[in-house]
């Protein structure tokens, strides 16, 4: 799939989503344009762009981005790992408390993605996790979730 085609799918998807939801909004009159006008026109334009590029993309034979399935997996595995770990952090940091979740998150990242040894990863995770907790929580007085620890 060419790059433009991939992009066109995103625009089309956004355009359709916008279309569905902005039609439900009031359109208003000429002397009081309603909230639907802008998003609706944008969605229509996006759909037009999306479809025209999708159709056009068929003709262009672009160089393939990936080299077979094996190459695909190897290339994207790190980003996928990072995304998954970040998602896990977001889901758990409220219940675990910021300090613990941050240290855990950093630890796993250092260990699996950066390929540090166990103790180095642990040390770095504790250092930066606690450091950020201190800085944001105490110096900048942000309210960070406490989880089940009394911290």
């Amino acid at each position, binding site marked *: 799939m060419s790059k433009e085609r991939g992009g066109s799918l995103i625009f089309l998807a956004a355009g359709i989503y916008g279309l569905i939801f902005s039609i439900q909004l*009031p359109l208003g009159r000429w*002397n*009081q344009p309603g909230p639907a006008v802008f998003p609706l026109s944008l969605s229509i334009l996006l759909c037009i762009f999306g479809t025209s590029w999708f159709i056009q993309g068929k003709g262009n034979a672009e160089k393939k981005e990936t080299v077979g399935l094996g190459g695909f997996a190897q290339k994207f595995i790190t980003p996928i790992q990072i995304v998954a770990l970040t998602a896990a952090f977001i889901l758990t940091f409220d219940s675990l408390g910021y300090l613990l979740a941050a240290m855990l998150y950093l630890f796993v990242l250092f260990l699996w993605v950066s390929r540090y040894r166990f103790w180095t990863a642990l040390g770095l995770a504790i250092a930066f996790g606690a450091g950020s907790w201190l800085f944001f929580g105490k110096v900048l007085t942000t309210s960070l979730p406490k989880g089940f620890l009394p911290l």
Partner: protein
Amino acid sequence: MKTHVRLVSILITLSLVMVTGSFAADYPTKPITLINPQAPGGTLDIQARAFAPLAEKMLGQPVVVINKTGATGMVGGLAGAQAAPDGYTLTVGSVNIPNAIEWEIINGRKPPFTRHDFVCIGTFTMSPTFIIVPPDAPYKTLADFIADAKAKPGQLAFSSGGLYGMSHLPAEIFARAAGIKVRHVPYTGGGPSLTAIVGKQVDFSVNYPANTLPLVRGNKVKPLAVIGAKRLKSAPNIPSTKELGIDAEYYGWVGILAPVKTPKPIVDKLRDVMKKVVEGKAFVDIIEQAGDEVYFLNGEELAKYMDAESVKIAKLYAEMVKETPK
């Protein structure tokens, strides 16, 4: 041995009594947050930030104002309504909150919170608004303006700081009481609304003394009247709508609210502290320097006022909704 047991039991009883009855005595033991649902620099901000350090002195704990803006006060209001009712998270409330709630109700949507989610502590000010026009406008009195508006129905426009906000409703109330048809152009906030009238983008506007009086003194806007029953101390030359025969009054109150389940001892203590600070010289000076007038209304009276007003506002909205295109 016996005395030992007696001593311990006395101690236990004493501590139990102290713990349960000491809510008010202990409070506050940690910093208090004041949520301001309006943007920084606005009317609420000025009063809240003037209040905070003075209250801090009386309460012995830091009082911090944070801004949680969005959706004409709904975001901050929601945060305040859902905060833990322990007296450590208060909301700077204003007439915008019941306005917003009524609007949702009238439009058939369930508001994210209602004013019954709050208990009122008290008010800082309850100021009326000024009707202002550009300084070179051909109107000398309010009557001139009304005559002009009647001659050109639907042509004159006014700016407000936001839909159904505290600078929109007084204008609507005035327009209906004077029997004129005008158009509304909403802006985002008091500042842009004032810029609009100074720059003559609209024909008139309605705003509060704190923002308006400096502009009046600098001859950037001309006030025609005060929408209220009496003239303002800081502007004795400007007639009130009531004395001109127009039955319109509206007071944009600003005060403090707490979540409804906050324990009574804490609420009482807060009301007490607030009354002392608000009526104290330091606070009054800052507010009067800004051109406003201090007016402390006790929490219970404020609740009654809100109840009475909500009936009026609901009626006003019903009319406004009929006129809005859907």
